[in-house]
């Protein structure tokens, strides 16, 4: 079996973060979280007794537990029927604020304008296990303070908030989010990455777990699962991603 790719490591890591979930939703343009959710679904089905994990990939017809329009995802989250979701950001800061609107200049005439906040300002408050996921790990993205808060990190403001981020996954590493202390804690480095590299590329201050270790790689059986059935299932929503990353998938 060939070496573990960058994407495979992320997919495997995400599936591990979804352990125990009954229901996972994945936003648009998120093939890696989508694959992670599909892998987690296979694992749940292989438990004894078999456990059903509901996966909804926005934009997919086959992997879609919903039929009441776009509002259903948000209602489901409020109802407590979405255990995990993924959010990214053009900027992410050390207090886990995320920015999907733009950078530089004064709102609304920002220098760089991104698409917009999507559902982040809501789901970030209501989904118990929000996984921040952004492959690019640079000082451009990981900033001290975001230029616009699309969705605020947890704070002590007395606002009803059953949900929030559990951590941040990038191309370099995985950070836990320590909610009481409102800080990221570097928990694992991806194979070949160093603490120095993470420090150089991170604009916010973070802590380092005493037991900082390497991100676990998938074993051969998991790799086969990702490259075979998971890649095949993912094709419904992300044909181009599958063609590019898993050209061998049927």
């Amino acid at each position, binding site marked *: 079996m060939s070496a573990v790719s960058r994407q495979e490591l992320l997919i495997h890591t995400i599936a591990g973060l979804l352990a125990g979930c009954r229901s996972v939703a994945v936003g*648009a*343009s998120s093939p890696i979280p989508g694959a992670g959710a599909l892998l987690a679904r296979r694992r749940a089905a292989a438990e004894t007794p078999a456990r059903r994990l509901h996966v909804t990939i926005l*934009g997919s017809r086959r992997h879609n537990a919903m*039929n*009441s*329009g*776009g*509002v*259903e995802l*948000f209602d489901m989250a*409020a109802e407590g029927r979405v255990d995990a979701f993924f959010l990214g950001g053009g900027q992410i800061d050390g207090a886990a604020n995320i920015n*999907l*609107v*733009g950078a530089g200049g004064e*709102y*609304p*005439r*920002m220098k760089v*304008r991104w*698409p*917009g*906040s*999507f*559902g*982040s*300002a*809501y*789901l*970030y*408050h*209501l989904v118990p296990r929000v996984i921040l996921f952004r492959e690019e790990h640079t000082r451009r993205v990981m900033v001290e303070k975001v230029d*616009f*808060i*699309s*969705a*605020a*990190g947890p*704070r002590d*403001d*007395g*606002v*009803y908030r059953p949900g929030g981020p559990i951590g941040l996954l990038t191309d370099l590493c995985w950070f836990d989010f320590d909610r009481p202390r409102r800080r990221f804690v570097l928990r694992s480095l991806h194979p070949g990455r160093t603490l120095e590299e993470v420090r150089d590329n991170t604009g916010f201050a973070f802590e380092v777990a005493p037991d900082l270790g390497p991100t676990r790689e998938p074993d051969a059986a998991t790799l086969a699962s990702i490259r075979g059935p998971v890649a095949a299932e993912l094709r419904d929503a992300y044909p*181009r991603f599958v063609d590019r990353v898993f050209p061998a998938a049927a």
Partner: protein
Amino acid sequence: MTPDWLLASADALAALVPDGASVAIGTDNSGAPMELARALVRRGTRDLHVVCVPIAGLPVDLLIGAGAVATLETSAITFGEYGTPHRFQAAVARGSLRLFDATCPAIYAALEAGRKDIPFIPLRGLIGSDLLKHRPDWKVQDNPFAAARDPIVLLPAIRPDFALIHADYADRNGHVFIGRRRDAALMAQAARHGALVTVEEVREDVDLMADETTAAAALPAIYARAVAIAERGAWPLGLDERYGIDEAHMAHYGELARSDDGFVRYLDTHVAPRRQAAE
């Protein structure tokens, strides 16, 4: 005899939309009202208030580029994997749009309030976001049902004048097949004057409401202000199983829309002349 609900073309539908009207437009994924957007541009429509449900893409970029939009309420403008909405970005940079940045569930909840004609609706989340700073129309109030302090956002209802929808077909009674695209129903219900609907065809052989299964997949005729046939009416975007996105044309649009001049050329070529159905 042509029924009273069926008009001759998308242009006839666009003629019902006065300058300054508010219109709801859904996502690019399915049933984007492209021919309706082109017809609005041809009509020279001005000062539209566009509500994206809850985000939008190509039709709104086109309308913005053509100068038809004064106010934009959206949770995002994106072409997904098919390029960059240059006209939106240029308008933001120029400050030529009155921009109401929102978040998807807020647009949905406000439309649901519009559909009930209740003046406002509370919604969880949102507090702490900078969106609130720029939305003087959103209020934060204490939940009057809570024993302790419990701040919550109140959103004013949204009732657009029209919902703009493209769909696969209308049946012989003017009911429109929307499948599980319930966003189309929500938009149409919330709209004061209902939906302006283009369809690929009118199917005289179908009565959607006659059967419990197909009835669930219909937009009832009462919510459609008027319907017109526009074959390939979502082009260059795709429509469900009927046709896929025209990637080459998306790339072409992306190239031309990058500059003001290029966009004018695009309009001259692809919008000003009434598109032939067979294109």
